[in-house]
């Protein structure tokens, strides 16, 4: 029976969660209706009638108190039953990962106002140089257990997929390991449910569940685009990437002083989370054909027009909310960038068509 207005469930453990919800509803709602019924009945039946005095039932003897303690014992019994079912569901979802031969791996990083997803690349290991990332779009194969490593870059976020009945807070300074899976293909919404600042309500991502072949094909095309550094340098740390490699945040594990290309930096620093490359309007203005474009800009809410040139780009990265493009809200966080990274990004943005 499925009378609660849940959205359609696509995960295996979601079924268990729905069952628990319906069990609790049946138990608690019957108790609620009985209690309300008795309350209303008593109110109507024992209204003040002239000449009729109330009874003296102080309720201090066991005979009278049993009217409270018997329903109480029933409630405690039902509660324990609910708690047993709940512990079963909780240990299934949160405490242990089902034994499977092959796991899909993904590293999810929440940052202010976008989600970054990192796939293990051809070698199947996260944290190696052939990983590739995507922003605000998580692709997983259907009927496959996906093991995730949830992290947060700056403040608390919360990874919530209503369709999969799955939610887990991302905490800076921790890597939370867990799993989820999907049994139906399609596109579903991902939301952030822990308040994380002004752009909290724009922090949306899409979960795209694909059939195995489609996923494999997409995976190959993405993995191919990654430019591998000199083959000798292939590091292969064990699965948990977090503690092992130092700054695993930059897309390619850089050799000592060679700065990652502007494009990878846009990805790694999460710029593409809010600014699109193909002209579509996301949280922030798009990068398409940015150089030399005329923009209406608000500086200390004085509206004036500015042509986009190098120092405007540099200033709007270091001082994001100094001049805000009209129609957007000034919520871009200050991201710490070294001088070379800043010049790399600005040069990349300049020759973007």
């Amino acid at each position, binding site marked *: 029976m499925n009378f609660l207005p849940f959205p359609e469930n696509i995960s295996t453990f979601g079924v268990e969660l729905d069952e628990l919800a319906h069990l609790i509803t049946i138990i608690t709602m019957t108790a609620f209706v009985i209690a309300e019924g008795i309350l209303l009945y008593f109110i109507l039946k024992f209204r003040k009638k002239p000449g009729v005095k109330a009874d003296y039932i102080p309720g201090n003897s066991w005979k009278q108190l049993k009217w409270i303690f018997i329903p109480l014992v029933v409630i405690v019994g039902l509660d324990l039953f609910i708690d047993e079912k709940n512990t079963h569901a909780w240990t299934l979802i949160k405490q242990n990962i089902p034994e499977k031969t092959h796991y899909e791996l993904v590293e999810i990083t929440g940052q202010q106002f976008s989600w970054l997803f990192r796939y293990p690349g051809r070698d199947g290991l996260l944290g190696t140089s052939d990983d590739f990332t995507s922003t605000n779009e998580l692709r997983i194969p259907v009927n496959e257990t996906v093991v995730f490593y949830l*992290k*947060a*870059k700056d403040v608390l976020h919360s990874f919530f997929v209503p369709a999969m009945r799955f939610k887990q807070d991302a905490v*800076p*300074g*921790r*890597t939370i390991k867990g799993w989820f899976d999907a049994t139906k293909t399609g596109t579903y919404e991902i939301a952030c449910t822990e308040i994380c600042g002004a752009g909290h309500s724009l922090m949306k991502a899409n979960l795209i569940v694909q059939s195995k072949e489609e996923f494999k094909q997409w995976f190959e095309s993405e993995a191919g685009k990654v430019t591998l550094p000199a083959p000798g340098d292939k590091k292969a740390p064990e699965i948990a990437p*977090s*503690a092992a490699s130092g*700054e695993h*945040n930059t897309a390619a594990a850089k050799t000592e002083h060679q700065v990652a290309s502007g494009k990878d930096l846009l990805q790694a620093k999460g710029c593409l989370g809010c600014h699109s490359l193909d002209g579509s309007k996301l949280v922030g203005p798009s990068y398409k054909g940015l150089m030399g474009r005329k923009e209406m800009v608000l500086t200390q809410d004085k509206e004036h027009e500015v042509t986009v040139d190098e120092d405007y780009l540099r200033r709007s990265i270091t001082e994001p909310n100094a001049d805000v493009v009209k129609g957007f809200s000034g919520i871009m966080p200050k991201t710490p960038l070294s001088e070379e990274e800043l010049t790399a990004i600005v040069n990349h943005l300049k020759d973007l068509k």
Partner: protein
Amino acid sequence: MTAHQATAHAEHDYHGHPNYFKTYFALLLLFSLSLAAGYLDNILMALLLIFGMALIKMMYVVNNFMHLRFEPLSIWFAVAFGLVCCFIFYFGVYPDILWVPLEVAH
């Protein structure tokens, strides 16, 4: 108001004052012992000694100087429940700080 009755009680409230000087010297002795224990090589032994003596000192101060020994049981209960709350908080937060690998997010 039980004013006059309370003062009558207050006179012979503290039968036989706890000997303050004796308590003081006991505290000094424990204090110097815990200082000496600081230089023990066996770390665990030293820590146990030091904090054990700190607890004994606290018991002395509370019982003799603050006269807890002569107070109604509810006051014992209040002080004890305060400590119980701290322990509940300690054991509640313990797993989240000590069983989690420390990483540095930047």
